């Protein structure tokens, strides 16, 4: 939609694009710089002015990372934890959202308000007793400690409920019931297919949140063999002698998978995020 008579070099447009370019630069530069440092040797960074273009030392630094932490093990742990939680969240949140949106039962609204209220409770509040429960269960240093408490969450239920209310007409439900479909069949055959975009978004959000989670894994996963990538990175950073080139090479490698996932699904992700927030 082009306004008639407004030239491209209109000053306010130039300012707009300049601001956007600055914004893009600020967003992207830290990623770039992470790679610059990660691919130079440490002495190059200690120079003043610092190196500004990527070097050739990336694989040397990467090798140092592998020597210091169990990098691939940590990545695998992160993949396992994130995938299992994502699958579980998608199932339990969507079916609960379906119940809150489309099934009539006593105390439904009260329970939903309660669910919303639980989102206000910071996870730190229950940190110590949760730790005790996990240690009673013998799950310290087990991935279960991270997976089980995160299998379903209030935000996901809320999100799915909003989306299902807005997209599935009651007539569709009634038609299904006429055909004698059980509630689970309705959920599986009538509700799930049209809400796939919302599932994709919730899945991505969940996957990224779990991948990036820090405090709880830090508390319950102490042994190196069960570290997630974030905890492994912290170990890398906490070494007595800080080899910045190595640390940032590790950070780069740890960020790469999630960056790729995001770039592949970005359209769906942002569209879903904005849709969900307005609904």
């Amino acid at each position, binding site marked *: 939609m082009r306004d008639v008579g407004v030239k491209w070099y209109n000053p306010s447009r130039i300012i707009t694009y300049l601001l956007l370019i600055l914004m893009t630069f600020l967003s992207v530069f830290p990623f770039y710089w992470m790679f610059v440092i990660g691919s130079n040797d440490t002495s190059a960074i200690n120079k003043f002015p610092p190196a500004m273009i990527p070097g050739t030392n990336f694989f040397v630094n990467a090798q140092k990372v592998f020597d210091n932490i169990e990098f691939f093990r940590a990545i695998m742990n992160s993949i396992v934890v994130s995938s299992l939680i994502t699958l579980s969240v998608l199932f339990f949140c969507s079916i609960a959202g379906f119940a809150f949106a489309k099934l009539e039962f006593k105390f439904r609204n009260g329970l939903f308000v309660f669910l919303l209220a639980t989102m206000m409770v*910071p996870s*730190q*509040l*229950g940190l110590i*007793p949760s730790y005790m429960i996990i240690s009673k269960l013998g799950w310290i240093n087990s991935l279960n400690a991270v997976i089980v408490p995160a299998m379903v969450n209030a935000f996901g239920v809320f999100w799915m409920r909003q989306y299902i209310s807005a997209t599935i007409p009651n007539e569709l439900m009634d038609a299904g019931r006429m055909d004698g479909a059980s509630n*689970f069949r309705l959920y599986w055959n009538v509700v799930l297919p049209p809400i796939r975009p919302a599932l994709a978004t919730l899945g991505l959000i969940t996957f990224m949140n779990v991948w990036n989670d820090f405090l709880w894994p830090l508390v319950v996963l102490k042994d190196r063999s069960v570290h997630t990538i974030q905890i492994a990175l912290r170990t890398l950073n906490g070494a007595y002698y800080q080899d910045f080139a190595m640390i940032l090479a590790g950070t780069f490698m740890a960020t790469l998978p999630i960056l790729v996932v995001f770039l592949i699904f970005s359209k769906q992700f942002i569209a879903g995020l*904005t849709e969900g927030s307005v609904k």
Partner: protein
Amino acid sequence: MSAKVELKSRQDLGVTKKTLKQTTRDHISGYLYISPFFILFGIFGVFPIIFTAYISFHKWNILGAKEFIGFKNYQMLFTDPIFWKALGNTFSIWIISTLPQLFMALIFAFILNQAFLKGREFFRLAVFLPNITSVVAVAIIFGAIFGQQYGILNYLLSFFGIDPINWRASVIGTHVSIAAMVMWRWTGYNTIIYLAALQSIPKDLYEAATIDGASKAQQFFHITIPMIRPMIIFTVILSTIGGMQIFAEPLMFSGAGGGAIKQGLTMTLYLYEEAFTRNSFGYASAIAWVLFLIIVGFSLINLFITKRIKSAE
């Protein structure tokens, strides 16, 4: 008795037995489908909250026996200078990070919503990108950016004749560095939320205003801001809750304990240290409860302000 009457009348109206069964079925499936959340929340939500309160009235480290001491942990907390420092740090970082962040997000969203804009998809992606980075990665990268000797920021500042700043050593330097991490990670997220809100405003509102002779600025303050206010409130609440719980950034930037003069010690970091470094579970639980009450207090204030703005209209 009355139920029977109702039952009869419904049957008279031609409601068959099957629909009655349907409501029972809906009840069973309804409770069944929502039960996983409530069971899990019971175990890892309700119980820990109550138990945290219980522990907070005890003196307890993990090895020794529990000893009931009433409100002593709380009394100690309120006279503990380190706690006040942590509280002050948390608030300082929260304000330095939230205000500019939301303001910038609003501007970016406004720019991204311009009708003539080309490449909107690309810029939207670019502004959102930092949000996918982990807190740990952000802390490491910004730790390098804010380094004293080799940091790129000090290098840039040297062009303006500013001597290298030891960001880590000073209180304000630490807060600014940590706030920069939060801002970098969250401005894009808020931009996207605001942009969505802007796009949901019906175009004819602006057209009508233009016909009535309202200027662009008037339109902004009388149409745009009121229409996206729910989203602004949403983001304020979200960043408040997030800001009060800030943990990974200070831990990574200032190290355990929050640095030499506790310049990076936040409430959650203090909680973590007390619980898992010093094993004083009772004291840490008291911190957890105070933190929780502060967050609830904030949310109530937010709600109150929202209501007042609404009723003022």
